[in-house]
């Protein structure tokens, strides 16, 4: 014969669980669900991001002789799913040329995890601060221009992240 034992501890635990569930359910209504509905917000273009842009930079193994690593991710707005095979164009003022120079421009594709990385020459300070330029401009999604600034000119890497929304 099994006894239904309701001790004080189990009662409190059950009550606590019920209260927590209730709080989660009502809390979800206020907090969690709208956050999910809004999802991952698209990245806005940065001011000055498109400066010295040259559309259609070729996909390259590396820009110039490399030595500096530009990395980042490309995700889809809403669910934040990584987007493979997306073309990202990169340019900057480096030890090998000005932002305007064709040899300072190159493009790369994201891998299956939506990540990209491109070896490029060392970025050097220009127009006040050392910075890079990145563009998504392939048409399937809205064009985004980024212009991340390096915390220090001595850094050997810089990252920028794209969240794209349908065009």
């Amino acid at each position, binding site marked *: 014969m099994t006894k239904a034992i309701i001790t004080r501890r189990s009662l409190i635990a059950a009550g606590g669980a019920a209260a927590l569930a209730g709080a989660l359910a009502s809390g979800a209504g206020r907090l969690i669900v709208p956050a999910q509905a809004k999802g991952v917000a698209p990245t806005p273009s940065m001011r*000055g991001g498109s400066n*010295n842009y040259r559309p259609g930079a070729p996909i390259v193994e590396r820009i110039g002789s490399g030595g500096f690593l530009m990395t980042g991710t490309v995700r889809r707005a809403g669910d934040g799913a990584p987007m493979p095979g997306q073309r990202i164009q990169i340019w900057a003022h*480096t*030890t090998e040329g*000005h932002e305007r120079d064709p040899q300072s421009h190159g493009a790369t594709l994201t891998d299956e995890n939506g990540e990209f990385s491109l070896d490029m020459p060392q970025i050097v*300070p*220009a*127009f*006040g*601060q050392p910075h890079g330029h990145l563009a998504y401009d392939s048409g399937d999604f809205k064009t985004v221009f980024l212009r991340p600034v390096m915390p220090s000119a001595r850094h050997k890497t810089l990252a920028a992240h794209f969240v794209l929304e349908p065009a």
Partner: protein
Amino acid sequence: MVFWAAVVIASTVPVAVAAFSPLLQWRQPVYIAAGFAGIIGLVVLLYQPLLAGGYMRWLPASRARALHRWLGAGLVITVLIHVGGLWVTSPPDVVDALLFRSPTPFSVWGVTAMWAVFAAAGLAVFRKRLRLPPRVWRRIHTSLAIITVGSTITHALLIEGAMGTMSKVSLCVAVAAATLKTIVDLKIWRSPARNRA
């Protein structure tokens, strides 16, 4: 004598340090010229208040005034070369700066300083035609000079560029000190009527 040696050092060392900056090897001649025009403009800002304040005792007042005018004209020219050279180097960055929509604050201060210099110079050129009471003219000119100096110093300090940090900060401190000292000594904002009473 020590004072003037300090002024000369403060105004020459920054230029020399910048001339040896490793960044120059990755810049085109126009960009380099534009940068140095900016540095020379900052140096001129050190001499302008010293001339206006009449601290160069060996110069007759009329010569000091004339030199102040010539250096003022030179300052306008350095600003034009500075902005023009940067325009040639990267037109979209300069257009952004001039329209106050640049992402970097240093350029906002730079363009503010540029307009203040132009206004101060314009006030000098049209001094006679404006027919302002001398004290009013002087207060407006000094106000524009304060905006110029303050904005230029902020502009320079925010930039990561060819100038060495130490020499740049020293020069900026010297410019600020010379400007403040002159304003205090010339009693620009003191009402003479109240003083006599």
